[in-house]
């Protein structure tokens, strides 16, 4: 074994990590080599001396300072989590959420209305209906929904107008009848025939 090889294995020898054979070989080399023996002695002493080095201690204020740092870290974390909550559930976010909900609701309602319109049954126009339809009777497939609705509303307006005129006329008839009733005694006395009511 060379001095260099001895040097390379010296820590393993001191740390008791060599096999018994390698250990014996090291001891034999130390016995026959002066430099190896000195090195082994110095290294043993150094290793032992290092374990006896006094342990340095931090200052008295170390714990207090560390504790304040820890508390600050905790406070910062809590503040961060609060900030995150505020961002996600703050007033701006609430407004945005409400608007989004309104838009979604609006779109949903539009779809429902469109579905209902499309589900209105299309009736085959008959000769009776022809009176009220703007266009002549057409096959059901040719009548589009919007046109049908338009026609229905016009029909409704026409009926309304008719009813209004009827009510006006009936009012007028009532007035005439009343006048006749009021005048009847006088007419009777004057021997005048009742005036027939007609349009």
């Amino acid at each position, binding site marked *: 074994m060379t001095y260099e090889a001895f040097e390379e294995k010296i820590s393993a020898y001191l740390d008791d990590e060599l096999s018994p054979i390698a250990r014996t070989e090291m001891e034999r080399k130390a016995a026959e080599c002066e430099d190896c023996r000195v090195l082994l002695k110095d290294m043993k*002493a150094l290793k032992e001396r290092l374990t006896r080095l006094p342990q340095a201690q931090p200052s008295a204020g170390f714990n207090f300072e560390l504790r304040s*740092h820890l508390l600050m*870290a905790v406070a910062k974390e809590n503040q961060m989590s609060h900030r995150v909550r505020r961002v996600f559930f703050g007033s701006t976010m609430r407004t945005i959420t409400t608007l989004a909900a309104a838009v979604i609701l609006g779109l949903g309602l539009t779809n429902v209305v469109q579905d209902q319109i499309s589900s209105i049954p299309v009736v085959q126009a008959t000769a009776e209906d022809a009176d009220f339809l703007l266009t002549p009777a057409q096959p059901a497939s040719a009548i589009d929904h919007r046109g049908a609705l338009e026609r229905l509303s016009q029909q409704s307006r026409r009926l309304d107008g008719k009813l209004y005129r009827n009510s006006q006329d009936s009012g007028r008839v009532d007035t005439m009848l009343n006048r006749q009733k009021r005048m009847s005694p006088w007419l009777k006395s004057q021997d005048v025939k009742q005036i027939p009511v007609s349009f």
Partner: protein
Amino acid sequence: MLMVNSKSGFGELTDAEILAEVAAGDIDAYGKIVGRYRGRLYNFVFRFVSEKETAEDIVQETFLRAFRKRKEYKAIANFSTWLFTIAGNLAKSELRRRKRWRLFSLHRDDESDTGMELPDETYRPDKVAESSLADDQIHDAIASLPENYRQVILLRDVEGMSYQEIAEIVDCPVGTVKSRVNRARLKLQQKLKNEGRDVGLEV
């Protein structure tokens, strides 16, 4: 939500048990961890960076970083090793920062007379007064070792860690660590011998 309450009587709880309390938000449980590792960590970092204030700052930062990661404790197999890894990395960063600053200062010193003056590391009366000369000389000899050797010799011979633990801390194979420790010891022994100092190496 974290809470701050006082709790005593931990007894001989393991690191994992205390860390479970910490993960649940109990800062005072973390005090037990600090008490357990403060001395060893400080000793290691102080001997690594050779400056008391810097060492304190690094140890504080180590505990703070470990605390911030308290939600990940379950994934950490060996807490003490992890602490030493953080501290070691911070210490290395500090040494590199110093080296850059020193280079910058020297450069400025060359250019003009207004450059920063480097502190004289050879004469430190505060240190002489604080400890025995021999301890101080060994400390200085360790401080003069290359960074990688200094770290492993401190962990192995001063902190008494196993090669496996050191390998985890320095993130190297065990064989590399063993080789580094051997070289570090040889260099240190050579250094002390060359300087002719009687540091009590005689057994």
